[in-house]
């Protein structure tokens, strides 16, 4: 098993030399970001989104988090209206949530950058669950024909913002696969009303 999170001094000393090996190496506990389920429906001048995402950090990223490095998680949306030749993108939105560890209290603090709201959680999983759960998020968009919801569809993905990491960590984050946390774009249909 190859891991850079082992609290081993010797390893840390020679970490730069083995880091290139991480290009091909994979951690035993791999992290993964996944959009599990999403519901989207039309409201007045908005698309309302409720989503459930699986956000799991690998050991490497967990170690970074508990070492005090804040992680920025981006949830990106894009709403399209279908056309016969080329779908039109009606808008694009990004929700940014920062998770960081508070060593003194042992809590994980989640700050939603868009609203400024901050909450703390006793465990990392709860914190990530909180980030990965969207409840009726409103995406303001001009709806031309609400009756025909088939015309609209939503693209969504969740990813970790590598560029928000400290500069020295960025090359590693770009090169090492445990840091490649990206759900890829998922496509969801937009309904006319919320599912019961």
């Amino acid at each position, binding site marked *: 098993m190859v891991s*850079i999170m082992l609290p081993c001094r010797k390893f*840390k*000393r020679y*970490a*730069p030399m083995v*880091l290139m090996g991480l290009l091909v190496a994979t951690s035993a506990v791999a992290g993964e970001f996944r959009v599990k389920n999403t519901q989207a429906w039309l409201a007045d001048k908005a698309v309302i989104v409720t989503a459930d995402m699986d956000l799991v950090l690998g050991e490497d990223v967990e*170690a*970074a988090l*508990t*070492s*005090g*490095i804040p992680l920025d998680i981006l949830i990106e949306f894009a709403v399209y209206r279908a056309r016969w030749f080329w779908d039109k993108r009606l808008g694009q939105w990004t929700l940014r949530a920062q998770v960081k*560890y*508070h*060593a*003194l*209290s*042992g*809590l994980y*603090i989640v*700050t939603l950058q868009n609203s*400024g709201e*901050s909450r*703390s959680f006793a465990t990392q999983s709860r914190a990530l669950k909180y980030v990965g759960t969207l409840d009726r998020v409103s995406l303001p968009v001009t709806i031309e024909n609400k009756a025909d919801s088939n015309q609209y569809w939503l693209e969504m993905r969740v990813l970790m913002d*590598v*560029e928000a990491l*400290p*500069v*020295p*960590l*960025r*090359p*590693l984050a*770009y090169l090492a696969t445990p840091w490649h946390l990206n759900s890829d774009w998922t496509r969801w249909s937009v309904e006319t009303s919320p599912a019961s």
Partner: protein
Amino acid sequence: MERRDLTRFLMGPVPAVVLSTLLIVTLAMLSAAALHSEVYGVYYSALLGVSVVGIIALMVLIAAHVYRMVLQMRAGILGSRLTLKLIGIYVLLAIIPLAVVYYISVQFLHRGIDSWFDVRIEQALDDALLLGRTSLEAVKEERVKRVQNLATGLDLVNSKQAMVRALDDLREQAGFTEVTLLSQDGRIIASSNLYTGSLIPNRPSISVLSRLRQGEIYANLEPTGDENLELQIVIPIYPLDVKQPVRILQVREPLPLRYSKLGKSVETASTEFNKLAYLRGPLKLSFVLTLTLVTLMTLLIAVWAAIFSARALTAPLRDLAEGTRAVTQGEYDKQLPESSSDELGVLVKSFNKMTRKIKQAQTVARRSQQETEDQRTYLETVLTHLSSGVLSFDVKGSLRTLNSAASDILLVNLKQDIGSTLKNLNTSYSQLEPFFNVIQNAIDNEIPEWRTEVTVVGARGRQVITSRGTKMGASKRRGGGYVVVFDDVTKLIQAQRDAAWGEVARRLAHEIKNPLTPIQLSAERIRHRCMSKLDKDEQETLDRATRTISEQVESMKSMVNAFSNYAQLKQMQPEQMDLNQLVEDVVELYRGEGNAAVLDLNLDNRLPLILADRSRLRQVLNNLLTNARDALAGNKNQRIELDTRFVQEADRSYVELTVLDNGPGFQEELLGRLFEPYVTTKEKGNGLGLAIVKKIVEEHGGAVWAQNRKGVGASLTIQLPMDVQKNRSDNDNLVSQSGDIQA
């Protein structure tokens, strides 16, 4: 821009300089971004990408250069091997110090970063954090007890308004920020909040409620948005009246400022240290990466500089090698660019001076060669237009040069025989054997100068050739040899003879014919006057004497007339004629009574028409037949044979007529002079018959000769060449003689 121009541009110095500058700037910015990430951190990844791409581009360019030079070396292009060797040396010189500096820098960097992290500091921070937590735990317990005490009595409040007032009092009394009373299932009963903006109080989570239901107390420190700490305490309130429901009191209060500040300080220090400790590896990687990029860029720029400087250094040598090769290939006007003033520049200048000198020498040589060529052409022109034939032979007797007149005179194409020896020429042209033998003899005996006259029987019949030979002086290139100049004097000799005989005839006619008539008249007068005065015996003597005088005078007259006719000038009148037909016509005259000889004709049917003067050839036939008949006089079995045949040889064709008889043959001592006037064995005749035959045959360009047959009789052969047309034109100006002299 064409592809070749683009390639030349890319392989030039401009892309390298631009790339190098870009890389230096990028790496400087990258370094700044790594050191001051809070300011330039956002550009770090982009700069890293640009640096990597730039370095790869530089590597590709260098690889292209090296590949091209390897190709040039394999193709054997001059200077490429030296250039590669120089580049190798330069690169080696650059790599060694760079590698040393790189290694030391990496070691220094590792040790430097490791030295930031002291174990004791880490431990102290951990201890401080633990102390902070312990201290806060004590505060928490004390606060819980305090809340429990303050909550006493709240279970007795029944009305909602009283409850709100009681909570307000409690909050103000204890200094809480928020006090909330909730039912056991988490519903809010009453609440008091320091911040009136917060209408809805925070409810405890389900897990907290669950723990309370189990009789536990929940107290925890939570960081607020401004990074201060807030204490959340949730306790159950058990009423004294068991019938009353259990309630839950949630209290939020900020940690005392002293604790908050200390906690915040410990938290920040610990977090920062842990963060740095974690980033130690990536930090090293980042620095090593930057250092590696800088080193690599330095190395690549050094390699690039090595390529250009090696090229610049070897360019004059390459030019010199190229120039030398050009000179060896005859390009003597090659000039090299004189760009430097160092030793190589001096060498280039010397080379240019040398080629200029060679060029001048070459120009002089070419001019001299041209003059020689002009002279040779002039000489050739003179020789070509010379009527005399000129042949030159080397010491071994091989034909070296000739002019066109030589071939014209000898009637053979000698140009194709250049290089042939005289022996081979003899074999090829047997009719010219006497001519070549004379030359061979002169060469064999190394006669310095000679002059001779030979007779050959060629395509035009008998030719008299006068030739003069001179031995050439030997030189280094030419080992001597002979020059032979010759002329065809056949016509000249013939004309001289004709003129001589004409003069004789004219003299005879003039000097002899004039006194003959007075002699004859005088004899007749003597006879007339004296006949009657003499007796009979004397009359007979006189009569006989005067008759003899008259007869001899007549005879002399006819002889003089014959000479007169021989000398008389008359133009030839050639025409296309059949010789066989002429022979048959003439022979017919010699058949019949009075002609005892049997005439046999053996005529060649292939005989072509020839261009000849019919009347003259008739006279030739008459003379020959008369001679033959006279020669056979007294023979019992007289036989005359006339043969004609058409002969085609390699370079000539002719018609041959032979008259054979079975008489006594020619006297051997006369055979050599048979065709001269006054040479005869007959009692009668003036000795002009065969002379006339010879003259007519020669006028036709032919040849005639006589010989005795083996056994009995004689033969007389006439050869008439087929190209009489040419011969006739040559003879147009020649005088000819005709006559009906009987031999």
